[in-house]
């Protein structure tokens, strides 16, 4: 892993156990990795490997049992500086697109006018100009998820967490969204952690990949991905790309 003196994200021996029917089940154990500011980390693994649990821990939605977790440097405020995109768009169906995007800004009590301007800019970054006043049901699944991404960015968070954000989309839309995500990441300079169960997707997206295995749920590998930037879909045909994906498959015992 990158040995930085003061990483943006630092996890060391993070573990979480669930209790169900009196039995203890490890959701994740011994997860350790560091992320520098502005990186795009892909957490990859099969279902049940605890990757969504890990993301929820990062988001502060559930507590972890042991280990160390540090996010951001001084002045990092988890409420203000984290944005989350879930697997489902989770748009509020009684709000128009623009008002959906504004939700986190409202919760944080940010000045309305600047938030509105920013929401419009983000919608244009996500190619949704002209859709501001539509209701969610008038949008396709891919568009709804783009609204969710705009919403996660509206309060200008330093860290963007994404839990299988394109898992519910069809294969082609998904590839298009991966390109979009890469573009947004490059333009915004944000630190992004994205959870996926797609090995190819993880290598294509990540500047860093963290591999998690199921049963027992633990971290199996973590490595940096160096591929020519900006990445294009064609990079998946290169031998380097193949080596990265093979490394993940090997770690997953496949």
């Amino acid at each position, binding site marked *: 892993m990158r040995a930085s003196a003061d990483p943006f994200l630092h996890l060391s021996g993070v573990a979480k156990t669930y209790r169900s029917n009196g039995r203890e089940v490890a959701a994740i154990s011994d997860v350790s990795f560091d992320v520098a500011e502005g990186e795009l980390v892909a957490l990859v693994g099969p279902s049940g490997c605890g990757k969504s649990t890990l993301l929820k821990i990062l988001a502060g939605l559930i507590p972890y049992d042991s280990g160390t977790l540090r996010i951001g440097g001084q002045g990092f405020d988890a409420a203000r500086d984290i944005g989350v995109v879930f697997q489902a768009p989770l748009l509020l169906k009684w709000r128009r697109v623009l008002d959906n995007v504004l939700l986190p800004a409202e919760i*944080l009590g940010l000045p309305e006018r600047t938030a509105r301007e920013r929401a419009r800019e983000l919608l244009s970054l996500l190619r949704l100009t002209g859709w501001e006043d539509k209701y969610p049901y008038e949008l396709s699944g891919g568009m709804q998820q783009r609204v969710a991404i705009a919403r996660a960015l509206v309060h200008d968070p330093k860290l963007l967490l994404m839990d299988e954000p394109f898992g519910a989309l069809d294969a082609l839309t998904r590839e298009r969204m991966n390109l979009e995500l890469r573009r947004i990441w490059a333009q915004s300079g944000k630190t992004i952690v994205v959870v996926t169960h797609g090995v190819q997707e993880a290598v294509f997206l990540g500047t860093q990949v963290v591999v998690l295995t199921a049963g027992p749920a633990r971290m199996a590998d973590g490595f940096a991905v160096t591929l020519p930037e900006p990445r294009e879909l064609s990079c998946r045909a290169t031998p380097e790309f193949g080596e990265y994906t093979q490394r993940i498959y090997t770690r997953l015992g496949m």
Partner: protein
Amino acid sequence: MWRLGGAAALAHLALLALWVWATTAGDVPRYIVPGPLETCATLASPHYGWLSNIAVTAGQAAAGFALAVLVGTALAVLFTWFAPVRRALMPLLVTLNLVPKVALAPLFIVWFGYGLLPNILITFVIAFFPIVITVARGLAEVEPELLDLVRVQRATRWQVFRKIQLPSALPYLFSGMRVAAVLAIAGTIVGEFIGSEAGLGFLMLSAQATLDTPAMFMALILITLVGIGLYVSVVVLEALTVTVDARLR
């Protein structure tokens, strides 16, 4: 849509035709079933005081209904905020719901005398249960992930309620209100039957005493119209506040 509307209109007209036919062709005495013309003619006699009686019935029904919406919603909110209160009171409410509410009317008259107050209260107890039960369900059935969404930003309990729970429960509230609107008018009329000196229910009873069936028919029609008015207001309010795909049918 148009065809459906046409068929419905036809059925209504058929009922009207049946009424005309039964009272002209048949040998039914007028004091048993009066014809539509005789029924409508009662509107012209001032001694029935139609307008003031409509006002009394509609006012009582609307007041009892509004009270049911307010108290029912408030109680449902209390249930979602304080789980122990819900665990204690919800089963009690289910039990109380099994009491035939109209049977309370004579007691209410003992307690509150004749007139507006007992009638509004009877309307209230009848309309209250569907509201509290549907709203409590609506508030409880909010997608947990929607709550996660705002918890990331450390939303306060009030923000969660105001921005997520209440709007997502709104379709449930309207579903409860549609049921309650139909019940409310029935409650009001029962109240007027049992102890009242005004209103369409009272008018119906006093017309019965003199076998004035045309006035009874007219009162029945007007009671139905008041009920329809209440129901339609709920539907219109829903159309104005709830987006199409969120409505419960």
